[in-house]
């Protein structure tokens, strides 16, 4: 049944949300215009607030309608049809919501509504000018999902479009306009991952949070409150820095766990697009703190806060306009909205820059001349380094934009991203890392004291000496294990250690004063640990699966080509570095059963691809989950390849299940790794190739054997016995539609494989005097047996046997040393941000209790 009501409600809500944000923006503007901060015109203010409330309600109605469409499997809507399917669990339906562009815009809009509400509630004084900016941005975002055509120009893309209006050429709609597909095309299996449920909301909350300091900065410029805006902006920037940073790293972790490019960061333009504003956001945070604590760097703070938000808009343009084209493999589908995006980007850039230029002269500056003994100088250097790092990534990532722009003005350009992106970015970002680690240590040590030659020597001696000792020790250990260290790595190691130790020594001092002051030190330690983690895991990632077979196709280019993949025959163990590795079979995920279930235990030939029959009892320990013959649910799209690792030296053994997904839409088979974590390294392995599952296997010519019960034969070199002839199992013949008089018997042949015995059950059926045969296969042994004939007189049975190439996988395995430093550094960084937020909130509350001497005394050296 075609249901247009829910879509109409949704689309109407989009229009309401759009109009309400327009009203809110205008009314907030009028309320704030020509009046001092906090003295907004009450009538306009009331109207504006009402309009923003209506906007918020409408946004929630849009989300409810869209989720209703997905949850109700309403495939008459394009969004549900293209992003969801019947077999999707509810938590992944949430991910379908933001798989498409429209849904991710909605997510962003929703966070803005929430943050706007918080500002109305808690920042009354700033409400009118700040919310005018907010409502203006909402106007832009809601127009992106408006889906209205005005004068032949499409404005926005509605998520509520009907499938028949989207696929206007599909013949089925000409025959029956009310046709509703029974199933959707499904969520991309790579996104069926718990990180994809929480990573996008986190990232978009980070996006949304950059609007808050931006709106305060614009409001400050507009209302000539050029310094007061800093205080609320700092707290929000801290929250934004933490959320965006964690969001980026969640994406990195998802990539590490799910994709098979062998790492967590690929310098893909889509990743860079978020990394750039985060760097600038962190730099702006430092500038804001400089102004609030030391009264310098206000102009820098303005520029950086505004740039952060503009870079977020630029990131949106990059990833959603289709400009990346060949350069990125995972930007969004191009919705043909690039014009709209460029107009908005341009409008915000021009307006914000113009306002800044007009007010530039009146922004207070400090006349203080900084020397190397001023920690402010070092903070400033740090912020500059971050901006340069961001600039470098921006210059390279924008290469497709230059092509598009030159093409637009009629010059043909064929620039491409650097062929070796990792080498290109590393060349710069490594040194940015070095500078960040060093400067964060220096500034942190000097920040809390008055500095002269003597105090600086005293403070730096201990962490300096420890750093040098530590670095020497690590270099010796690296050499001891026979690895090389380039000078650049040595510098990064030393800088990273200094970053950790200098901040740690300050942390120990600060904890004694007051824990809540330690936010900076803690997040700096986190950053330095992340750098060390990247150095170890990327610089020393070690291919375990070097091809040692000696078999190479072509010896033309032997010198510098890495041969990083090995072929593993099923059940044949192969040596790889310190490990003996064996591929032991294909497994499936059966919901409700812990771990994975061997495919050999499942009969998949029944009509429903999401169900299978159990060939034997499926149990874990003593608990039997399914009995032989039971029907059970399976997830057919994922196959898990069981790979056993055994360390020859330590005898330690573990099992990994790298996964491959059959995905027609993405053109074949997608591999995801499985990772075995140890405290000091990960073993990461993924399938590179398997025999093509869509191709029919090539079987050898059938060889006939005539046997009596108890006879033995050799099948494909395996010893086998015909144990019995018995009535066929009900479960195996269920799909054949047998009637009362029909007969089904099966042979029970035991084949002795290398590791275990296999029961083969080929079936012989007589149905209404017609003979049918159901062959049985042992994939482990590459064997297929057909029950060809029965001779009742001699009690002899004829079996046809054919063989095929044994099953194999091609595997790549990599060791990632000390990758845990990266993840634990991320957590520390987030913790540091959190501590700093708590500290700011305490300070915000302090004016209400100003006569607490203890609070003041605890920061005696600070120049407030």
């Amino acid at each position: 049944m075609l249901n247009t009501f829910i879509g109409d409600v949704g689309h109407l809500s989009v229009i309401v949300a759009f109009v309400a944000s327009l009203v809110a923006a205008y009314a907030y503007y009028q309320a704030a215009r020509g009046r001092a901060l906090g003295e907004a015109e009450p009538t306009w203010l009331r109207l504006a607030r009402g309009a923003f409330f209506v906007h918020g309600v409408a946004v929630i109605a849009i989300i409810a309608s869209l989720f209703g469409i997905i949850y109700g499997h309403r495939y008459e809507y394009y969004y549900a049809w293209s992003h969801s399917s019947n077999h999707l669990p509810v938590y992944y339906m949430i991910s379908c919501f933001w798989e498409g562009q429209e849904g991710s815009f909605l997510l962003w809009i929703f966070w803005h509504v929430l943050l706007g509400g918080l500002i109305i509630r808690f920042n009354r004084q700033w409400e009118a000018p700040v919310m005018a900016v907010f409502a203006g941005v909402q106007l832009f975002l809601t127009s992106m999902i408006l889906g209205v055509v005005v004068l032949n120009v499409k404005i926005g893309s509605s998520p509520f479009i009907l499938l028949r209006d989207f696929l206007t050429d599909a013949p089925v709609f000409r025959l029956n306009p009310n046709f509703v597909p029974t199933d959707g095309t499904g969520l991309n299996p790579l996104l069926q991952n718990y990180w994809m449920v929480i990573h996008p909301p986190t990232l978009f909350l980070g996006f949304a949070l950059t609007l808050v300091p931006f709106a305060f900065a614009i409001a400050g410029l507009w209302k000539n409150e050029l310094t007061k805006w800093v205080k609320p902006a700092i707290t929000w920037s801290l929250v934004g820095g933490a959320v965006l940073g964690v969001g980026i790293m969640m994406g990195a972790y998802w990539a590490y766990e799910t994709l098979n490019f062998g790492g967590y960061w690929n310098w893909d333009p889509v990743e860079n697009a978020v990394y750039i504003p985060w760097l600038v956001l962190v730099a702006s945070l430092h500038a804001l703190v400089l102004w609030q604590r030391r009264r310098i760097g206000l102009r820098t703070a303005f520029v950086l806060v505004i740039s952060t938000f503009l870079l977020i808009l630029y990131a949106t343009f990059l990833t959603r306009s289709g400009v990346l084209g060949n350069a990125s493999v995972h930007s969004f589908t191009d919705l043909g909205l690039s014009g709209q995006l460029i107009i908005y980007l341009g409008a915000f850039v021009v307006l914000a820059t113009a306002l800044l230029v007009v007010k530039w002269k009146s922004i207070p500056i400090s006349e203080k001349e900084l020397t190397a003994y001023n920690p402010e100088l070092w903070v400033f250097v740090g912020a500059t380094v971050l901006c340069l790092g961001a600039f470098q990534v921006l210059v390279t990532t924008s290469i497709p934009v230059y092509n598009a722009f030159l093409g637009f003005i009629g010059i043909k350009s064929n620039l491409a991203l650097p062929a070796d992106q990792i080498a290109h970015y590393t060349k710069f970002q490594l040194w940015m890392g070095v500078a960040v680690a060093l400067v964060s240590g220096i500034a942190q040590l000097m920040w809390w004291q008055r500095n002269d030659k003597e105090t600086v020597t005293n403070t730096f001696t201990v962490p300096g000496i420890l750093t040098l000792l530590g670095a020497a020790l690590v270099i010796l250990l690296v050499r001891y294990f026979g690895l090389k260290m380039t000078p650049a790595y040595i510098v990064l190691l030393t800088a990273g250690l200094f970053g950790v130790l200098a901040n740690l020594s300050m942390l120990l001092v600060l904890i004694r004063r007051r824990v809540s002051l330690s936010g900076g030190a803690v997040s700096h330690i986190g950053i330095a640990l992340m750098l060390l983690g990247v150095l170890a895991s990327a610089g020393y990632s070690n291919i375990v699966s070097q091809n040692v077979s000696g078999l190479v196709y072509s010896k033309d280019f032997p010198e510098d080509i890495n041969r990083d993949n090995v072929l593993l025959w099923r059940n044949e163990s192969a040596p790889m570095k310190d490990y003996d590795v064996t591929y032991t079979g294909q497994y499936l995920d059966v919901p409700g059963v812990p771990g994975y279930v061997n495919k050999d235990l499942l009969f998949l030939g029944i009509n429903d691809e999401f169900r299978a029959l159990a060939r034997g009892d499926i149990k874990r320990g003593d608990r039997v989950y399914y009995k032989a013959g039971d029907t059970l649910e399976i997830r057919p799209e994922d196959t898990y390849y069981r790979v056993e690792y055994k360390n020859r030296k330590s005898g330690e053994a573990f099992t990994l299940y790298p996964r491959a997904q059959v995905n027609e839409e993405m053109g074949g088979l997608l591999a995801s790794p499985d990772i075995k974590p140890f405290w000091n390294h990960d073993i990461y392995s993924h399938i590179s190739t398997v025999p093509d599952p869509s191709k029919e296997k090539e079987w050898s010519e059938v060889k006939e054997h005539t046997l009596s019960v108890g006879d033995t034969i050799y099948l494909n070199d395996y010893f086998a016995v015909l144990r019995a002839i018995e009535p066929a199992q009900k479960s195996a013949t269920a799909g054949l539609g047998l009637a009362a008089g029909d007969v089904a018997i099966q042979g029970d042949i035991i084949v002795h494989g290398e590791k275990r015995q296999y029961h083969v059950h080929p079936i012989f059926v007589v149905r209404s005097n017609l003979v049918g045969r159901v062959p049985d296969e042992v994939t482990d042994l590459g064997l297929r047996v057909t029950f060809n004939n029965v001779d009742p007189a001699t009690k002899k049975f004829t079996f046809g046997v054919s063989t095929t190439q044994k099953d194999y996988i091609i595997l790549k395995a990599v060791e990632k040393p000390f990758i845990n430093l990266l993840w634990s550094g991320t957590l520390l960084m987030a913790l540091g941000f959190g501590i700093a937020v708590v500290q700011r909130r305490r300070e915000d509350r302090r004016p209400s209790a100003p006569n607490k001497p203890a609070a003041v005394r605890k920061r005696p050296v600070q120049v407030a």
Partner: protein
Amino acid sequence: MKKSHLLILAVIAVAISILVTTAGDVSQYVSFKEARELAAEGNLTKVHVVGRLPRDLQKNIVGLEYNPTLDPNYFAFTLVDTNRLAQRVVYFNPKPQDFDKSEQVVITGAMRNDVFVADKILLKCPSKYVEKDIKGATASVN
């Protein structure tokens, strides 16, 4: 001169060096003809080539060579660039699983002797109605 001026000068210097180095690292989309010319000049910088896979009447790709049981890290194919020039390409990695279905192929690498040695293959797969590209649909070395 004030220290802040020095800092600004240093920043400008770094920014310029970033621009210069990036300009040096930038690769190009070229045809096989240009790739051969570059190699003939002894220039081994890696380039991007966009091309299509030649197909026979049954729409099967012509000239694929991958025999994993012999060498899993050797995959060779023929690519026809936008000027209809065919070139043998070697990729020292397993064959990307979705290779057979891809329409357009972007490779990076350089000519060596008579073959183009690719170190990255980016596949554009046709999708029925809209193009859906997602990270992971490529195969890359590194």
